[in-house]
């Protein structure tokens, strides 16, 4: 039963002011601009775009500023804002083979066509503090010396290379190339198809997916993944407006893609092939894309005839728990008033204790009362 209780308006208004003041911090320190967040905290911005499921770096930067850097709170702001916007349509499927590549590495082929392009990465840094970053003014601007020749813009995706030899499980659209399921519009049912799973993973919590991917690698999943390819860069997005009837290029999105290659699957009649997991994310989000690709492969177990023994292989478990906005909502709602619920439990507990005490007292009384036989024995 819900009982309406009023009160706390003044306190709530005051907390709005106090959180704004707290967020601002020491007023003697210059306020951070959203452009600074967008340009200088790009990896945090990417995380908010992914988990907020809305690609817009300016909005994600604002969300991070408003949420004091809390990625999940920021994702929540993105999700809430999204619901106020009309849906104007869907894009054509993005073509990641036509990406303007800034980074592209493969852990499976040393000499692959197009080469290993390290791009902007922390992978080869020593993880030692660069204390001059704390200094602010007076640093030389960081600039890379461009090579004479640009990269060849055509850079084949690694699984497509292996696919040519028939060694790789092919990724082809099902008959009719159906429009994908949209979990923001329709309720998810289980078992969930691959398009549902990939959409859920793409907006899923990076930490949760990372933990699941790690569990797969540690033996709770039985896959042995290789990073077939990771690529980062800009991809053109196209829509076909009804009123025009032809494709219009609406600009570029930065995307990170991971093609994870896993051990073979074959049968008496089908020659063994490598199997695949796929990860794709907005912005530079390599850890997310990698974790997504490992979990995608684990969830493909059913299609490949594998037993779903471990959490990462169970679509219902993964899809119901990967959304951090929903998860945070349910965990954190516990701090809202539960006075009536708790009062009910408190009364129940008092009654149970009273009954127990009464029973013990009764038993003690009975034990101490001299019986007829004892009297006879005196």
């Amino acid at each position, binding site marked *: 039963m819900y009982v309406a209780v009023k009160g706390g308006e003044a306190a709530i208004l005051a907390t709005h002011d106090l959180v704004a003041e707290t967020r601002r911090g020491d007023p003697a320190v210059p306020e951070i601009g959203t452009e600074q967040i967008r340009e200088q905290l790009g990896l945090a911005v990417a995380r908010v775009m992914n988990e907020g499921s809305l690609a817009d770096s300016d909005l994600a930067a604002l969300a991070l500023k408003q949420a004091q850097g809390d990625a999940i709170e920021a994702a929540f702001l993105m999700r809430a804002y999204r619901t106020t916007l009309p849906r104007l349509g*869907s894009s054509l499927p993005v073509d990641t083979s036509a990406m303007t590549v800034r980074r592209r590495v493969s852990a499976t082929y040393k000499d692959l066509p197009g080469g290993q392009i390290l791009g902007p990465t922390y992978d080869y840094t020593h993880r030692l503090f660069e204390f001059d970053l704390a200094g602010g003014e007076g640093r030389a601007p960081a600039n890379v010396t461009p090579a004479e020749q640009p990269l060849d813009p055509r850079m084949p995706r690694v699984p497509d290379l292996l696919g040519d030899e028939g060694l790789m499980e092919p990724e082809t*659209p099902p008959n009719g190339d159906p429009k994908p399921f949209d979990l923001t519009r329709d309720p998810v049912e289980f078992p969930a198809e691959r398009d549902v799973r990939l959409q859920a993973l793409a907006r899923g919590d990076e930490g949760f997916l990372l933990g699941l991917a790690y569990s797969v690698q540690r033996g709770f999943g039985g896959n042995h993944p290789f990073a077939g390819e990771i690529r980062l860069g800009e991809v053109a997005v196209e829509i076909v407006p009804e009123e025009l009837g032809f494709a219009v290029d609406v600009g570029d999105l930065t995307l990170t893609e991971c093609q994870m290659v896993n051990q073979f699957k074959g049968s008496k009649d089908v020659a063994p092939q490598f199997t695949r997991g796929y990860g794709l994310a907005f912005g530079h989000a390599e850890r997310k894309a990698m974790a997504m690709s490992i979990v995608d492969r684990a969830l493909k177990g059913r299609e490949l005839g594998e037993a779903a023994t471990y959490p990462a292989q169970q679509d219902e478990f993964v899809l119901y728990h990967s959304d951090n906005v929903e998860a945070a909502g349910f965990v954190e709602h516990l701090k809202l008033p539960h006075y009536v619920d708790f009062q009910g439990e408190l009364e129940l507990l008092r009654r149970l204790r009273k009954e127990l005490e009464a029973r013990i007292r009764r038993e003690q009384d009975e034990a101490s009362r001299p019986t007829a036989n004892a009297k006879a024995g005196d």
Partner: protein
Amino acid sequence: MATADGRETMNTTTRQAWMGVLARATRGELEALVARAGVMPGYSVLKPAETGTIMVEARAGGTGRRFNLGEATLSRCVVRLADGTIGFAYALGTDRVKATLSAVIDAMLQQGANPVLAEGVAELRRRQDDARTLALRKAAATKVDFFTMVRGHD
């Protein structure tokens, strides 16, 4: 493509190319472009500039089943010039002023009567191509040159 008075002006490929250039341009660049091309023509708004989202689709493995990656913000606008030419604009982001400007420029380019404007768009395109080439040259600087250490004794 036919304008209201029936002139064949541009083919679709050419128009697609400039619409892509306009979508990638900043509002400031488009304002400078219009200023350079002379007076802004009178226009009526058929569909006021609005911001919404599009669902960005991708394919599993890059080539397989379609799935919804997530949404992106998009702004669009439709305008009509005095001679009936209709201009459209669609661009990622939330800039509705840019969408309106861009729709007007799309209509003017279809009229094909303003060489300064056409040249300005060509210059924007060169600037965007140069930026892409520079990014590819910077990435190329991080390309690994493998070499083999000779080991063992003959």
